[in-house]
């Protein structure tokens, strides 16, 4: 009886609520009516509290100043944005303005999903962002040409978060952007900071090791890919590519200055151990500073160490981007919105919200992101080392990364295979994957 009553009540509620919900309409892309304003949908992937607030504030400011072009803010998620976008593009329901990262743009561009912004952006915005950043969003249009498929606005460099007290105790030189640690110096310092059974000099969280290793390998000129005149990419693992791999492996298994148990961790997972003094140094992207500020125990002193130097301090970079869907009914209005959203002062707000580096050269000069507090000065200065990540333009990279490189690197760092074996897998298995994408 009770079940029947519950079901009956449920059914009644369903009829009412579903009917009400069915009325809530079509999300669609931008739409305009003859009488009303142009409506644009903006898919944002901001997820940190400050970042969401900054995004919403900018949208609100725009909407107030532009009553004829109204933007609807929609929050997406990094985890699944590309699945969401593929169906949206295929179904003709894509948002007008799309927040994503540059590795995703290549595939979307070649399939004609994104608008080529090459001749649509204002000179002021073009000039404010350096060519190295534009390179991260310049891809083949799937025919014979090259196009610009997004505006790059936030980038990440790899720095080292360090326990200040432990550095002082070990009397270690705190490096500057002008005089960074070399990889040799770094190895020596991690050995010095290691107290067997009590503390490791460094923790390398390598749950997703590939992008990290590839970006850092540029320190020694390691690119991992080569492209022939016909545009066909193949994998290479020569002496330059082996440097960073070998050095991290040495810390783990020769010097024993890196904790092997941290290998399976995600980026933020070693933080409790770092705060507890179990690790003295934590290589990470600049955004991790936000988590450190939020979670560090009272009185915990930490510093941001500039990027390491090999033969150079160059690092590979990808960018967060704003793009316009090719199917948008209002591309010009969408470009206008992006030009406002990513101007210098606004990039400062966005960079602070996400604890990342702005691509805007005028934003990079802003005093608030050059202050010593929370390592902003070091983080912002590190932007000069960023160059386009070599893997960004390799068709099939994503499959190579997940199916070949991730397991190979994890096995190598866990000391289950040799560097030669890892290199052989990366090249031979990798080329089989890339071959499929080049035909």
């Amino acid at each position, binding site marked *: 009886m*009770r*079940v029947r009553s*519950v*079901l009956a009540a*449920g*059914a009644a*509620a*369903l009829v009412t*609520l*579903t009917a009400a*919900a*069915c009325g*809530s*309409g*079509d*999300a*669609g892309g931008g739409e305009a009516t003859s009488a009303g304003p142009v409506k644009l949908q903006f898919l944002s992937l901001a*997820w*940190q*509290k400050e970042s*969401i607030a900054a995004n919403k504030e900018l949208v609100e400011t725009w909407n107030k100043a532009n009553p004829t072009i109204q933007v609807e803010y*929609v*929050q997406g*998620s*990094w*985890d*699944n944005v590309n*699945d*969401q976008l*593929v*169906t*949206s593009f*295929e*179904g*003709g*329901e894509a948002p007008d303005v799309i927040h994503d990262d540059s590795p995703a743009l290549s595939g979307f561009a070649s399939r004609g999903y994104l608008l080529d912004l090459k001749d649509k952006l204002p000179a002021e915005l073009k000039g404010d962002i350096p060519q190295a950043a534009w390179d991260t969003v310049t891809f083949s249009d799937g025919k014979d040409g090259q196009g610009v498929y997004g505006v790059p606005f936030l980038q990440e460099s790899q720095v080292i978060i360090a326990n200040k007290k432990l550095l002082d105790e070990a009397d270690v030189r705190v490096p500057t952007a002008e005089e960074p640690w070399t990889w040799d110096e770094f190895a020596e310092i991690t050995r010095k900071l290691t107290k067997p059974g009590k503390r490791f000099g460094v923790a390398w969280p390598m*749950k*997703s090791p590939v992008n990290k290793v590839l970006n850092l390998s540029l320190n020694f000129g390691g690119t991992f890919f080569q492209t022939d005149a016909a545009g066909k990419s193949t994998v290479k693992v020569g002496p330059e590519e082996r440097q960073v791999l070998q050095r991290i492996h040495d810390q783990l298994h020769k010097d024993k200055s890196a904790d092997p148990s941290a290998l399976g961790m*995600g*980026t*933020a997972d070693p*933080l*409790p*151990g770092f*705060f*507890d003094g*179990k690790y003295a140094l934590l290589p990470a992207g600049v955004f991790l500073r936000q*988590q450190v500020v*939020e*979670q*560090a*125990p*009272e009185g915990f002193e930490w510093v941001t160490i500039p990027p390491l130097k090999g033969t150079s301090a160059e690092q590979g970079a990808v960018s967060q981007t704003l793009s316009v869907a090719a199917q948008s009914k209002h591309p010009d209005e969408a470009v206008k919105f992006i030009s406002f959203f990513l101007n210098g002062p606004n990039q400062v707000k966005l960079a602070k919200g996400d604890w990342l580096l702005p691509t805007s050269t005028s934003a990079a000069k802003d005093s608030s992101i050059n202050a010593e507090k929370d390592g902003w000065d070091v983080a912002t200065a590190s932007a000069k080392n960023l160059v386009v990540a070599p893997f960004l333009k390799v068709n099939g990279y994503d499959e190579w990364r997940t199916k070949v490189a991730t397991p190979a690197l994890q096995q190598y760092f866990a000391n289950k295979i040799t560097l030669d074996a890892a290199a052989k897998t990366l090249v031979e298995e990798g080329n089989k994957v890339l071959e499929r994408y080049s035909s």
Partner: protein
Amino acid sequence: MRALGRAGQYVALVAYVVFLGFPLVWLFSTALKTPREMGNLNPSWVPADPTLANFAAAFGEQDLVGSAVRSLVVALATSVITVVISLPAAYAMARHRSALNRAATGWVLVSQVFPFILIIIPLFMVLRALDLVSTLTGLVLVHVTFVLPFALWMLQGYVRAVPRELEEAASVDGAGRLRALASVVAPLLAPGVVATLLFAFISSWNEFLFALVVLKDPDVATLPLTLVKFTGPEGVSRLGPLAAASLLATIPSLVFFAIIQRRLRSGLMAGAVKG
């Protein structure tokens, strides 16, 4: 010896309850912790400095209540429609054995092996043609389609367990086919129906991928779509608000279980047919 066996059973039961309860208790504990306490290498069960800030953040930043209501609507609709469709179908398939039935049962099981991702774009196109994108009706339709095969297969087993002799006895007593079904078979199938309802409810309540694809309008987002907004790239998340929001997400399903779990009992047919 028997007492020892009984004690062992209780120990195993307690261990199982602890195993099942652990994530929920941990979620509750995490929801009450400050970010600083979450960064502690030696976490404690009881928060040292309990705070409701995570709940305030979760409820203040996202439409959790609205999402939960929509999820509830979709899950209830899915479970009821699934049972309404699969019950008569399961009866027909269980009682009338034929080559066609065997083929249908086989097809139902085969349909379970298709990866969701394979059909997601065609499905989206179909819903778009029906003007059902960004509607809860569209999502219910998709969820029913995907829950139905397993529900059908599940209910078939329950129908087969009801002896035919009971229906025959009812007809000897003068009951027509429908009367026999309504008065004799249906009550005996209650545990099966409840189990199927629960299965359909949970499947729909937790479902993420289809909801992500179908519900483009943020105003109609279901709870899984709202929860994921507390996560960032590379597995980094805002653990406190996420724990608080996830705790809320467990409440409706717990209530639903509490209401109908009493019907989940077996043994109704014990001794129904003897000799």
